[in-house]
Protein backbone atom coordinates (compact mmCIF):
# COMPACT_ATOMS: atom_id res chain seq x y z
CA UNK A 1 0.00 0.00 0.00
CA UNK A 2 1.11 3.54 -0.72
CA UNK A 3 0.18 5.61 2.29
CA UNK A 4 0.19 9.32 1.53
CA UNK A 5 0.41 11.49 4.62
CA UNK A 6 0.03 15.21 4.28
CA UNK A 7 -2.08 17.64 2.30
CA UNK A 8 -2.40 19.87 -0.67
CA UNK A 9 -2.96 23.57 -0.29
CA UNK A 10 -2.63 26.75 -2.32
CA UNK A 11 1.16 26.69 -2.05
CA UNK A 12 1.79 23.14 -3.17
CA UNK A 13 1.56 19.44 -2.42
CA UNK A 14 3.10 18.20 0.77
CA UNK A 15 3.01 14.46 1.11
CA UNK A 16 5.28 11.88 2.67
CA UNK A 17 4.56 8.54 1.04
CA UNK A 18 5.36 5.25 2.73
CA UNK A 19 5.29 2.11 0.58
CA UNK A 20 4.12 -0.48 3.08
CA UNK A 21 5.12 -3.37 0.78
CA UNK A 22 8.73 -2.24 1.16
CA UNK A 23 8.66 -0.99 4.76
CA UNK A 24 9.79 -3.62 7.26
CA UNK A 25 9.08 -1.56 10.36
CA UNK A 26 12.77 -1.32 11.36
CA UNK A 27 12.35 2.23 12.65
CA UNK A 28 15.61 3.65 11.22
CA UNK A 29 13.63 6.57 9.77
CA UNK A 30 12.13 7.35 13.17
CA UNK A 31 15.61 7.74 14.62
CA UNK A 32 16.84 9.76 11.66
CA UNK A 33 14.11 12.41 11.67
CA UNK A 34 15.14 15.48 13.66
CA UNK A 35 11.53 16.73 13.76
CA UNK A 36 10.11 13.43 15.09
CA UNK A 37 7.61 13.23 12.25
CA UNK A 38 7.61 9.46 11.98
CA UNK A 39 6.64 6.58 14.23
CA UNK A 40 6.39 2.81 13.80
CA UNK A 41 2.89 1.59 14.57
CA UNK A 42 0.55 -1.24 13.64
CA UNK A 43 -0.75 -0.84 10.09
CA UNK A 44 -4.00 1.07 10.61
CA UNK A 45 -5.17 0.42 7.08
CA UNK A 46 -4.99 -3.34 7.30
CA UNK A 47 -6.26 -4.17 10.79
CA UNK A 48 -6.54 -7.89 10.05
CA UNK A 49 -2.82 -8.39 9.32
CA UNK A 50 -1.66 -5.54 11.53
CA UNK A 51 2.02 -5.42 10.47
CA UNK A 52 4.27 -2.84 12.09
CA UNK A 53 5.01 -0.02 9.63
CA UNK A 54 6.37 3.51 9.61
CA UNK A 55 3.80 6.27 9.45
CA UNK A 56 3.58 10.01 9.99
CA UNK A 57 2.28 10.92 13.45
CA UNK A 58 -1.15 12.55 13.72
CA UNK A 59 0.42 15.67 15.17
CA UNK A 60 2.46 16.28 12.01
CA UNK A 61 0.04 15.27 9.24
CA UNK A 62 -1.44 18.72 8.82
CA UNK A 63 1.82 20.65 9.04
CA UNK A 64 4.25 18.54 7.03
CA UNK A 65 5.30 21.58 5.03
CA UNK A 66 6.72 23.13 8.17
CA UNK A 67 7.83 19.98 9.97
CA UNK A 68 9.91 18.80 7.02
CA UNK A 69 10.87 22.33 5.95
CA UNK A 70 14.40 22.30 7.36
CA UNK A 71 15.17 19.12 5.41
CA UNK A 72 13.54 20.28 2.20
CA UNK A 73 15.81 19.49 -0.71
CA UNK A 74 16.14 22.18 -3.36
CA UNK A 75 18.82 21.51 -6.05
CA UNK A 76 21.86 19.48 -4.97
CA UNK A 77 20.72 19.04 -1.44
CA UNK A 78 20.82 15.62 0.15
CA UNK A 79 17.57 13.63 0.37
CA UNK A 80 15.38 13.94 3.47
CA UNK A 81 16.97 12.25 6.50
CA UNK A 82 14.19 9.66 6.62
CA UNK A 83 14.72 8.73 2.97
CA UNK A 84 18.47 8.52 3.39
CA UNK A 85 18.04 6.29 6.43
CA UNK A 86 15.64 3.88 4.76
CA UNK A 87 17.51 0.88 3.37
CA UNK A 88 14.31 -0.41 1.74
CA UNK A 89 13.65 2.82 -0.23
CA UNK A 90 10.16 2.82 1.18
CA UNK A 91 9.84 6.56 1.74
CA UNK A 92 9.30 9.26 -0.88
CA UNK A 93 8.00 12.80 -0.78
CA UNK A 94 6.06 14.98 -3.19
CA UNK A 95 7.83 18.35 -3.23
Amino acid at each position, binding site marked *: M*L*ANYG*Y*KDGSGEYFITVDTEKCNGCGDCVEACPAKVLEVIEDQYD*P*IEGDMIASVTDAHRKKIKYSCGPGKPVSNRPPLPCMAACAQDAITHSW
Partner: protein
Amino acid sequence: MAEEYWRWKEYNWHSPDIDWKQAESVTAGVDVGSVSSQAVIMTDGQLFAYSNMRTGSDSPDSARNAMNWAMEETGMTLEDVQYVVGTGYGRVNVPFAKRPITEIACHARGANWMYGPGVRTVLDMGGQDCKAIHCDERGKVTNFLMNDKCAAGTGRGMEVFADLLSVSIEEVGDMSFDVEEEPEPVSSTCVVFAKSEATSLLREGWPKSKVLAAYCSAMAHRVFTLLERIGVEKDFAITGGIAKNSGVVKRLEQEIGFEALKPKHDTQIAGALGGALFAKALLEKERKK
Protein backbone atom coordinates in the same frame (compact mmCIF):
# COMPACT_ATOMS: atom_id res chain seq x y z
CA MET B 1 -37.16 29.78 14.27
CA ALA B 2 -35.69 30.15 10.83
CA GLU B 3 -35.89 27.12 8.59
CA GLU B 4 -32.81 24.92 8.65
CA TYR B 5 -32.03 24.43 4.99
CA TRP B 6 -28.86 22.53 5.69
CA ARG B 7 -30.63 19.85 7.68
CA TRP B 8 -30.88 16.51 5.91
CA LYS B 9 -33.18 13.65 6.78
CA GLU B 10 -32.16 11.29 9.55
CA TYR B 11 -33.53 7.77 9.40
CA ASN B 12 -33.18 4.15 10.41
CA TRP B 13 -33.96 0.87 8.68
CA HIS B 14 -33.93 -2.82 9.43
CA SER B 15 -34.51 -5.86 7.28
CA PRO B 16 -37.87 -7.50 7.94
CA ASP B 17 -36.66 -10.82 6.45
CA ILE B 18 -33.75 -11.59 8.75
CA ASP B 19 -34.16 -13.30 12.11
CA TRP B 20 -31.06 -12.15 13.91
CA LYS B 21 -31.51 -14.69 16.70
CA GLN B 22 -30.60 -17.44 14.22
CA ALA B 23 -27.39 -15.72 13.18
CA GLU B 24 -23.98 -17.08 14.13
CA SER B 25 -22.32 -13.71 14.10
CA VAL B 26 -23.86 -10.35 14.95
CA THR B 27 -21.40 -7.54 14.37
CA ALA B 28 -21.64 -3.78 14.12
CA GLY B 29 -19.75 -0.77 12.86
CA VAL B 30 -20.30 2.69 14.29
CA ASP B 31 -19.01 5.61 12.27
CA VAL B 32 -18.92 8.80 14.33
CA GLY B 33 -18.13 11.40 11.72
CA SER B 34 -17.65 15.12 12.01
CA VAL B 35 -21.16 15.86 10.77
CA SER B 36 -23.09 12.57 10.76
CA SER B 37 -23.01 9.30 12.69
CA GLN B 38 -24.04 5.93 11.37
CA ALA B 39 -24.45 2.51 12.91
CA VAL B 40 -24.64 -0.63 10.78
CA ILE B 41 -25.49 -4.07 12.15
CA MET B 42 -24.69 -7.17 10.14
CA THR B 43 -25.80 -10.73 10.75
CA ASP B 44 -23.54 -13.39 9.18
CA GLY B 45 -22.21 -10.77 6.78
CA GLN B 46 -25.66 -9.65 5.65
CA LEU B 47 -26.95 -6.13 6.11
CA PHE B 48 -29.49 -6.28 8.93
CA ALA B 49 -30.04 -2.77 10.22
CA TYR B 50 -28.66 0.75 10.05
CA SER B 51 -29.23 4.27 11.18
CA ASN B 52 -27.97 7.64 10.05
CA MET B 53 -28.17 10.79 12.16
CA ARG B 54 -26.35 13.99 12.96
CA THR B 55 -23.37 13.86 15.28
CA GLY B 56 -23.93 15.83 18.45
CA SER B 57 -21.30 17.63 20.46
CA ASP B 58 -20.63 14.48 22.50
CA SER B 59 -19.05 11.56 20.62
CA PRO B 60 -19.94 8.74 23.06
CA ASP B 61 -23.55 9.94 23.13
CA SER B 62 -23.71 10.16 19.35
CA ALA B 63 -22.37 6.62 19.07
CA ARG B 64 -24.90 5.31 21.59
CA ASN B 65 -27.79 7.15 19.93
CA ALA B 66 -26.93 5.88 16.48
CA MET B 67 -26.55 2.30 17.74
CA ASN B 68 -29.80 2.39 19.74
CA TRP B 69 -31.67 3.81 16.80
CA ALA B 70 -30.40 1.10 14.47
CA MET B 71 -31.55 -1.55 16.98
CA GLU B 72 -34.97 0.08 17.46
CA GLU B 73 -37.88 -2.36 17.06
CA THR B 74 -35.54 -5.28 16.36
CA GLY B 75 -35.58 -6.57 19.94
CA MET B 76 -31.79 -6.52 19.86
CA THR B 77 -29.77 -5.04 22.71
CA LEU B 78 -26.12 -4.07 22.85
CA GLU B 79 -25.30 -7.34 24.64
CA ASP B 80 -26.45 -9.30 21.60
CA VAL B 81 -23.84 -7.66 19.38
CA GLN B 82 -20.68 -9.76 19.57
CA TYR B 83 -18.15 -7.35 18.12
CA VAL B 84 -18.34 -3.59 17.53
CA VAL B 85 -15.80 -1.57 15.55
CA GLY B 86 -15.65 2.19 15.91
CA THR B 87 -14.60 4.36 12.97
CA GLY B 88 -14.62 7.98 11.80
CA TYR B 89 -13.32 11.07 13.58
CA GLY B 90 -14.81 9.96 16.89
CA ARG B 91 -13.65 6.34 16.60
CA VAL B 92 -11.71 6.32 19.86
CA ASN B 93 -14.78 7.69 21.62
CA VAL B 94 -17.17 4.83 20.96
CA PRO B 95 -17.46 3.38 24.48
CA PHE B 96 -18.80 -0.05 23.48
CA ALA B 97 -16.45 -0.63 20.54
CA LYS B 98 -13.83 -3.35 20.89
CA ARG B 99 -11.40 -1.51 18.69
CA PRO B 100 -11.14 1.57 16.49
CA ILE B 101 -10.27 1.26 12.81
CA THR B 102 -9.46 4.19 10.55
CA GLU B 103 -12.31 5.22 8.25
CA ILE B 104 -10.08 4.92 5.20
CA ALA B 105 -9.84 1.14 5.61
CA CYS B 106 -13.55 0.98 6.45
CA HIS B 107 -14.69 2.97 3.42
CA ALA B 108 -12.68 0.80 1.06
CA ARG B 109 -14.09 -2.36 2.63
CA GLY B 110 -17.62 -0.94 2.71
CA ALA B 111 -17.48 0.18 -0.93
CA ASN B 112 -16.15 -3.26 -1.90
CA TRP B 113 -19.26 -4.83 -0.35
CA MET B 114 -21.69 -2.21 -1.65
CA TYR B 115 -20.45 -1.95 -5.21
CA GLY B 116 -18.75 -5.29 -5.71
CA PRO B 117 -15.13 -6.46 -6.04
CA GLY B 118 -14.59 -4.51 -9.29
CA VAL B 119 -14.19 -1.24 -7.43
CA ARG B 120 -10.64 0.13 -7.66
CA THR B 121 -11.10 3.78 -6.78
CA VAL B 122 -13.24 5.04 -3.93
CA LEU B 123 -13.86 8.69 -3.32
CA ASP B 124 -15.34 9.45 0.06
CA MET B 125 -16.73 12.93 0.33
CA GLY B 126 -17.57 13.28 3.96
CA GLY B 127 -18.72 16.02 6.25
CA GLN B 128 -15.37 17.57 6.94
CA ASP B 129 -12.83 15.78 4.79
CA CYS B 130 -12.37 14.10 1.50
CA LYS B 131 -10.50 10.86 0.84
CA ALA B 132 -9.32 9.28 -2.37
CA ILE B 133 -8.66 5.56 -1.97
CA HIS B 134 -7.44 2.79 -4.25
CA CYS B 135 -8.29 -0.75 -3.22
CA ASP B 136 -7.87 -4.28 -4.50
CA GLU B 137 -10.57 -6.88 -5.20
CA ARG B 138 -10.86 -7.71 -1.51
CA GLY B 139 -11.40 -4.09 -0.50
CA LYS B 140 -7.91 -3.77 0.91
CA VAL B 141 -6.40 -0.28 0.66
CA THR B 142 -3.53 -0.04 -1.84
CA ASN B 143 -3.11 3.73 -2.01
CA PHE B 144 -4.83 6.59 -0.28
CA LEU B 145 -4.88 10.29 0.13
CA MET B 146 -6.88 12.31 2.59
CA ASN B 147 -7.62 15.98 2.65
CA ASP B 148 -8.81 17.04 6.06
CA LYS B 149 -7.00 20.33 6.26
CA CYS B 150 -9.86 22.38 4.89
CA ALA B 151 -13.60 22.08 4.31
CA ALA B 152 -13.51 22.68 0.55
CA GLY B 153 -15.06 19.75 -1.25
CA THR B 154 -16.98 18.49 1.75
CA GLY B 155 -20.51 18.23 3.08
CA ARG B 156 -19.98 21.02 5.57
CA GLY B 157 -19.20 23.41 2.73
CA MET B 158 -22.38 22.38 0.96
CA GLU B 159 -24.40 22.96 4.13
CA VAL B 160 -23.00 26.47 4.34
CA PHE B 161 -24.15 27.15 0.79
CA ALA B 162 -27.60 25.64 1.32
CA ASP B 163 -28.00 27.94 4.28
CA LEU B 164 -26.68 31.02 2.47
CA LEU B 165 -29.02 30.52 -0.48
CA SER B 166 -32.02 29.22 1.49
CA VAL B 167 -32.18 26.08 -0.64
CA SER B 168 -32.84 22.72 0.97
CA ILE B 169 -29.63 20.66 0.94
CA GLU B 170 -31.42 17.83 -0.87
CA GLU B 171 -32.38 20.15 -3.76
CA VAL B 172 -28.98 21.78 -4.22
CA GLY B 173 -27.74 19.29 -6.83
CA ASP B 174 -30.74 19.41 -9.15
CA MET B 175 -31.13 23.16 -8.85
CA SER B 176 -27.52 23.70 -9.89
CA PHE B 177 -28.39 22.40 -13.38
CA ASP B 178 -31.19 24.91 -13.78
CA VAL B 179 -28.90 27.30 -15.68
CA GLU B 180 -28.75 28.34 -19.33
CA GLU B 181 -25.03 27.89 -19.51
CA GLU B 182 -22.45 26.70 -17.05
CA PRO B 183 -20.89 29.70 -15.22
CA GLU B 184 -17.21 29.96 -14.32
CA PRO B 185 -16.54 28.13 -11.07
CA VAL B 186 -16.10 30.33 -8.00
CA SER B 187 -12.41 31.11 -7.89
CA SER B 188 -11.70 30.25 -4.29
CA THR B 189 -11.55 26.69 -3.02
CA CYS B 190 -11.88 27.83 0.57
CA VAL B 191 -15.46 27.62 1.87
CA VAL B 192 -15.27 30.89 3.77
CA PHE B 193 -13.89 32.81 0.77
CA ALA B 194 -16.25 31.02 -1.61
CA LYS B 195 -19.14 32.14 0.55
CA SER B 196 -18.00 35.78 0.35
CA GLU B 197 -17.64 35.43 -3.40
CA ALA B 198 -21.10 33.89 -3.70
CA THR B 199 -22.58 36.71 -1.66
CA SER B 200 -21.15 39.29 -4.09
CA LEU B 201 -22.46 37.29 -7.05
CA LEU B 202 -25.94 37.31 -5.50
CA ARG B 203 -25.73 41.09 -5.06
CA GLU B 204 -24.78 41.37 -8.72
CA GLY B 205 -28.07 39.70 -9.48
CA TRP B 206 -27.06 36.08 -10.19
CA PRO B 207 -29.92 33.64 -9.64
CA LYS B 208 -29.45 31.02 -6.91
CA SER B 209 -29.15 28.21 -9.42
CA LYS B 210 -26.23 29.91 -11.17
CA VAL B 211 -24.40 30.50 -7.88
CA LEU B 212 -24.92 26.85 -6.97
CA ALA B 213 -23.62 25.78 -10.37
CA ALA B 214 -20.51 27.88 -9.84
CA TYR B 215 -19.94 26.38 -6.41
CA CYS B 216 -20.67 22.77 -7.38
CA SER B 217 -18.22 22.93 -10.27
CA ALA B 218 -15.53 24.50 -8.07
CA MET B 219 -16.08 21.69 -5.58
CA ALA B 220 -15.97 19.02 -8.29
CA HIS B 221 -12.73 20.46 -9.62
CA ARG B 222 -11.16 20.66 -6.18
CA VAL B 223 -11.95 17.00 -5.55
CA PHE B 224 -10.75 16.07 -9.02
CA THR B 225 -7.28 17.52 -8.39
CA LEU B 226 -7.09 15.35 -5.29
CA LEU B 227 -8.12 12.26 -7.25
CA GLU B 228 -5.65 13.11 -10.01
CA ARG B 229 -2.79 12.64 -7.61
CA ILE B 230 -3.49 8.97 -7.09
CA GLY B 231 -5.19 8.47 -10.47
CA VAL B 232 -8.69 7.21 -11.21
CA GLU B 233 -9.04 3.56 -12.16
CA LYS B 234 -12.29 1.90 -13.10
CA ASP B 235 -14.57 0.97 -11.39
CA PHE B 236 -15.02 4.23 -9.63
CA ALA B 237 -17.39 4.64 -6.69
CA ILE B 238 -18.33 7.58 -4.52
CA THR B 239 -19.31 7.26 -0.87
CA GLY B 240 -20.33 9.77 1.76
CA GLY B 241 -23.06 12.37 1.80
CA ILE B 242 -21.93 14.34 -1.27
CA ALA B 243 -22.46 11.22 -3.41
CA LYS B 244 -26.15 12.16 -3.17
CA ASN B 245 -25.51 15.59 -4.67
CA SER B 246 -25.93 15.27 -8.44
CA GLY B 247 -24.57 18.79 -8.95
CA VAL B 248 -21.12 17.71 -7.78
CA VAL B 249 -21.21 14.09 -8.94
CA LYS B 250 -22.17 14.82 -12.57
CA ARG B 251 -19.62 17.60 -12.90
CA LEU B 252 -16.94 15.39 -11.42
CA GLU B 253 -17.85 12.59 -13.85
CA GLN B 254 -17.43 15.05 -16.72
CA GLU B 255 -13.95 15.97 -15.55
CA ILE B 256 -12.91 12.35 -15.09
CA GLY B 257 -14.41 11.29 -18.39
CA PHE B 258 -16.46 8.36 -17.18
CA GLU B 259 -19.29 7.67 -14.79
CA ALA B 260 -19.24 6.57 -11.19
CA LEU B 261 -21.09 3.40 -10.24
CA LYS B 262 -24.72 3.93 -9.31
CA PRO B 263 -25.23 3.40 -5.59
CA LYS B 264 -27.37 0.46 -4.48
CA HIS B 265 -27.40 1.45 -0.83
CA ASP B 266 -27.20 4.65 1.12
CA THR B 267 -23.73 6.03 0.38
CA GLN B 268 -23.42 7.53 3.86
CA ILE B 269 -23.29 4.16 5.60
CA ALA B 270 -20.20 2.88 3.72
CA GLY B 271 -17.81 3.58 6.61
CA ALA B 272 -19.95 1.95 9.29
CA LEU B 273 -20.64 -0.94 6.92
CA GLY B 274 -16.91 -1.48 6.45
CA GLY B 275 -16.56 -1.37 10.23
CA ALA B 276 -19.17 -4.10 10.63
CA LEU B 277 -17.36 -6.23 8.02
CA PHE B 278 -14.04 -5.79 9.85
CA ALA B 279 -15.84 -6.65 13.09
CA LYS B 280 -16.96 -9.92 11.52
CA ALA B 281 -13.45 -10.76 10.31
CA LEU B 282 -11.93 -9.90 13.70
CA LEU B 283 -14.59 -11.94 15.51
CA GLU B 284 -13.80 -14.96 13.36
CA LYS B 285 -10.10 -14.49 13.98
CA GLU B 286 -10.78 -14.36 17.72
CA ARG B 287 -12.91 -17.52 17.63
CA LYS B 288 -10.21 -19.47 15.82
CA LYS B 289 -7.72 -18.85 18.61
